[in-house]
């Protein structure tokens, strides 16, 4: 293996490492495991949007955890993905308050507009759709999250406008 490839294989370095280390500093020195959610999120975010066994193993290694305890965490929390997602993962809330204000119809609209079903990725890799539970923004129902942003009080034309403006 060439030198460059060995370095490229290790993702916990540079900026990624700095960010994880900032989380580690928040917890007692003997409690590195407390940073596992943060580490998985940072790795997922910077390495294409979903977790692979290799990425989880690297997190385990870095935090001195057993791989299985990292897999357990990575599969328990719904924000972690284990299959490819779109560059923009559209998380549409379909829980009760959003449903009362039309989230089911909006989901149908999204599926038709993007020509994919929940859980699928558009052929160009740009979008995927995920149905999510209440995101704590029911006052703005129906709502969705894309990346770190909440979009509230959605209508079909608002959705058009939002998606058209994403790179």
């Amino acid at each position: 293996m060439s030198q460059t490839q060995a370095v490229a294989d290790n993702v916990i370095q540079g900026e990624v490492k700095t960010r994880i280390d900032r989380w580690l500093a928040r917890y007692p020195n003997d409690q590195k495991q407390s940073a596992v959610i943060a580490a998985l999120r940072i790795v997922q975010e910077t390495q294409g949007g979903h977790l692979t066994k290799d990425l989880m193993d690297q997190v385990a290694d870095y935090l001195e955890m057993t791989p299985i305890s990292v897999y357990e965490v990575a599969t328990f929390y719904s924000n972690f993905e284990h299959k490819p997602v779109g560059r923009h993962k559209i998380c549409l809330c379909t829980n009760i308050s959003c449903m009362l204000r039309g989230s089911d119809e909006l989901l149908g609209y999204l599926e038709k507009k993007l020509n994919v079903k929940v859980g699928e990725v558009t052929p160009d890799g740009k979008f995927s759709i995920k149905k999510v539970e209440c995101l704590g923004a029911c006052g703005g129902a129906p709502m969705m999250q894309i990346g770190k942003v909440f979009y509230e009080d959605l209508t079909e034309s608002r959705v058009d406008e939002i998606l058209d403006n994403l790179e």
Partner: protein
Amino acid sequence: MELNQCCYRNNHLERSWDIDVYISQGGYEVWKRVLAGELTPQEIIDEVKTSNLRGRGGAGFPTGLKWSFMNRHAPGPKYLLCNSDESEPGTFKDRDIMRYNPHQLIEGMMIAGYVIGAHAGYNYIRGEFWEPYKRFTGAVEQAREAGLLGENILGSGHSFDLHAHLGAGAYICGEETALIESIEGKKGQPRFKPPFPASYGLYGKPTTINNTETLASIPMILAKGGEWFRDIGVANAGGTKLFSMSGHINKPGNYEIPMGTPFKDLLAEAGGMWKGRQLKAVIPGGSSTAVLPAENALAMTMDYDSIAKAGSFLGAGSVIIMDDQTDMVKALERLTWFYYDESCGQCTPCREGTGWMYRMVHRIVQGKGRPEDIETLKDVSGKIMGRVICGLGDAAAIPVASFLKHYEHEFRHYIDHGCSIYDRA
């Protein structure tokens, strides 16, 4: 009805999340008095007891009493945790404390930490709350720069460190012991209680955990006095309360009102029913509290005792409004899916029962229900309650029991006709 007297009192101000704005409104005055030794931990606990403040996370446990369980002089580390997991469907009040008044929460956390003798605190914020997280951590940095947080604060000899922790999507992590497991870097599976966190909490150390709204109420209680807060509310329910109003109303949003306000007035404040329709049903305290028919709701006031008398629970103050065209069977189907999806799987009655309930309601919605399904549903929900480790089991069973109690005829219609009472067959 006077709005926004406590947690949201600064929300209307420009850049209300900025430390300068908070200080201009008297912010951190109480904290400085505490550091100067003008308010002892015991005096603070007494004032909080006087205020009648009860836990705003949903269980309503008296806050002053909870703090008194901690021995602040016990050697070794102790922790103060804030529960900003806010995942109960219908609940979105804590988000706006963090977005618009984060310093009042920070001041409350520092005071609570001081009372219980904690050296550090964490605010557990649900993973999707990126904007509130940024506001909160930004405010923590400002407080640190102002010397109000950290080592030997303002030369008082007292040290306290404060951090945010982000979750990653799991309703169960709002349950306090699951939240602790989650900060420890594990799956969020609740622990048996007792021992309560006060004796065995984060990293096995004595820990106090309170809801965001509970902690953000503290600075005002101490600034204006426990009696001031108590007298805003009614007997057995002191103070103001944040109500998250969602569903079929004209002005969904958060409303901070005095405890004991008539439900009718709250509904009017939230713009009344949308589309000129009639009120059919209300879930008053978040999806895990019992649904109430309009007439029960219209007769109640917004406080623990009155809502209990009406047949439900104040919970986290998450009021979900349903109009006279709401299909109650479909609404319950969605809720049963939620609890099935979120059960952590540790207890058999919850893991299996939530799946059973969802599949049965789903079958009814698909027009394949059988007459005996209704009795089976009642039976399964009854068998979960009280037989599990944590409150999620009951939370899953209560909607099923209450929807069937008040709207059984809608379920029967689906079973007999294969469609909702609103579908023209």
